[in-house]
């Protein structure tokens, strides 16, 4: 991938395929993507990114929250996606919350980034 289309900082270049799917700015988009994914897809993303989360936190901590370069903001969004994907991977063993049926809980206000 050429540098000018990269979503993530260079040191995370191997995660670009996941960034294309999971760098989503709102919780609603991330949750919908989780529900639309298979457990294999969720597991693959988790397995690729979970071991790198400390590195990602350290990278983003270099910048103030209100003045982050785009690649760092994308990395933040990728970490939020890892948070939402960790629930099915670590607890539920399925994309949906068990016994939650079609229930929805929509986030209508959230901080940025």
């Amino acid at each position, binding site marked *: 991938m050429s540098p000018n289309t990269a979503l993530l900082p260079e040191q995370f270049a191997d995660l670009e395929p996941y960034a294309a799917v999971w760098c989503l700015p709102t919780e609603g988009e991330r949750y919908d993507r989780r529900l639309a994914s298979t457990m294999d897809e969720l597991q693959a993303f988790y397995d690729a990114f979970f071991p790198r*989360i400390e590195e990602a936190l350290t990278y983003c901590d270099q910048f*103030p929250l209100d003045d982050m370069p785009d690649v760092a903001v994308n990395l933040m969004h990728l970490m939020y996606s890892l*948070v939402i994907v960790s*629930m099915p991977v670590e607890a539920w063993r399925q994309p949906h919350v068990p016994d939650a049926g079609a*229930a929805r809980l*929509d986030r209508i206000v959230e*901080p940025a980034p």
Partner: protein
Amino acid sequence: MAKWPKPPEGSWTEHYPYLGTGPVSFQDSISPEFYEDEREAVFKRAWLNVGRVEQLPRNGSYFTKEIAVANASIVIVRDMEGEVRAFHNICRHRGNKLVWTDFPREETSGSCRQFVCKYHGWKYDLDGALTFVQQEGEFFEFDKDDYGLVPVHCDVWAGFVFVNLDREPRQSLREFLGPMITGIEGYPFEKMTERFVVRAEVGSNWKLFMDAFQEFYHAPILHARQTPAAFSIPAAQNGFYAPHYQIDGPHGVVSTAGIRPWNLPKDMLKPMEEATRSGLFGPWDAPDVGPLPDGVNPANCDPWGLDSFQIWPNFVILIWGQNWYLTYHYWPTAHNRHTFESTLYFVPATNARERVAQEMAAVSMKEYALQDGNTLEATQSMLESGYVDSFPLNDQEVLCRNLHKVAVDWVEDYRREQGRVRA
């Protein structure tokens, strides 16, 4: 978990003898007739929380609140002198909704110097005075002073904005809240300005969802799969005992002991909790917010989990031991439907790590709430089936017992005033 001492009467429930200990019917949660009276008896009489002062950051800031159960739309505004006021959101000319954006039924917010009706351009100052009427000379015996916006009783406590739709409130806001609730005054709510708001339409009576979050008897069972087996199995075996309940008038509080997740063995934690140092109880690294008022953590738990202040009728302030808080609002839309809103409030994150920890707490909370909300639809439909109409409540459900009793009491008072015998 240790079993905590109970009051001398032997139980929390018997400490409040008027509650009784018998089974309850939940008729108040399934009857359309009861709901119709509840609208008048409760939601047009009690003080209702509609938000916080931080939603009105400057003079001229406003937001609207749709209160379907009271058939009301209200605009709350900080006027040019800085005073928080509330008005019925209706133009005095021909009744158009005054403040809305694109979709008249949706809530909106913003900032302005005056309110201008979209229909014929009537203008109102932020203190409600009618200041401009298009072609005023065309009206008959007309005095603008007679047509100001209709005020709604409005008061602020600890930064929480309340309205009261009664013609003349029976109690001041402070009297209504009472000493147990006002005892948390001084909690640093104003430092916790980072907000996450979630909203859901729930197919149950509003009181049934309040019940779900005012007892934790269900927690080790309904939510067992959210924690590793090394945590959830002993939790279910031990059951749940709260160290403290208190009822003060229509309001209640339950306080719980906490855990120190950072001291737990790894097999009791989810890997993501360790990686983000956060979870349902909030970020592990709590911000320093200074001393807390005496009304918080009433059982002096260490570690302390949370206090859930159940403020009659439909408002909850839940203060976490990890120095953040959340609110719940349950806005009825029918006898078997309501809109649920939860707002999480944190001290603003200063770096990426703190922000990700907040995200972890917010996502964990949502996973729990989705299980709670869906379970309620199952409860509502079975209560409505009518085959069973008597349900035992245990001592850990004392606040549920109180809520339903208060609802029935308020409705019966109203029916008596109306000269109607009990239905």
